[in-house]
């Protein structure tokens, strides 16, 4: 059964979506990630969508769901690498993409996650000091 691989790197979970996912595969990814977050207790989750040439409402909802679930389990999620044409289309589509942080690439995504962790350590639970990344 095909699955999208989830990597564990320095206490973060990293998923790189390289295929045109059908809905069942997307749901499997959602389940697998939840399982991994519970199992490993990562500090954060990075989802790399730089290879995705299309994000529709289903995939958008999947990303939101993952972010919300991760949050419940005390991990932040950052979606990285959204292509400009995908972004323009999502805006036109009217997809709200709530609760998802985004960054231009993996490096910046990691920086966002680290600075959130850092400000949480400094008793700033809402991360108000942190301006890194965009929260939608």
């Amino acid at each position: 059964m095909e699955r999208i691989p989830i990597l564990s790197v320095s206490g973060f979970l990293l998923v790189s979506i390289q295929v045109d996912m059908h809905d069942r595969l997307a749901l499997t990814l959602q389940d697998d990630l939840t399982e991994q977050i519970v199992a490993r207790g990562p500090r954060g989750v990075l989802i790399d969508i730089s290879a995705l040439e299309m994000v529709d409402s289903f995939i958008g909802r999947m990303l939101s769901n993952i972010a919300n679930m991760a949050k419940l389990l005390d991990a932040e999620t950052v979606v990285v690498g959204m292509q400009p044409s995908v972004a323009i289309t999502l805006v036109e589509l009217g997809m709200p993409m709530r609760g998802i942080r985004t960054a231009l690439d993996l490096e910046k995504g990691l920086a966002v996650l680290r600075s959130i962790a850092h400000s949480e350590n400094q008793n700033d639970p809402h991360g108000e000091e942190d301006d890194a990344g965009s929260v939608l």
Partner: protein
Amino acid sequence: MQVASSESFEIQSSEDVVIVRQAVRRHAVALGFNLVDQTKIVTAASELARNTLLHGGGGSAAVETVRTGVAAGLKLTFVDEGPGIADIDLAMKDGYTSKGGMGLGLGGAKRLSNEFEIDSAPGKGTRVAIIRWKGL
């Protein structure tokens, strides 16, 4: 309006939704759509194909090149013999959900297209057609 090349597909599984998406991408590229317009119509196709599968109980899609005078475009038609939609206006509202959520499907597909047509009634199935003209 003349119809040039056309292809049709059965939509019976989530893999079929991907097949339709990829076919639409191919046709859009062949017609010379720019990247953003390609992404828009592929995304609209994904939404409508999913609706056909999840709400229509499966159906078919037709992808056709259309021409009128000097303009060329891509026309997609999605047909199912499912339960049909009782209140189309309500179904077109964003966020409207019925058994699992048509959500942004119809409204989104309309926003991403230049032309949108829907024909549906309880017991009569559903037919949705969209057109994206090149360069508009």
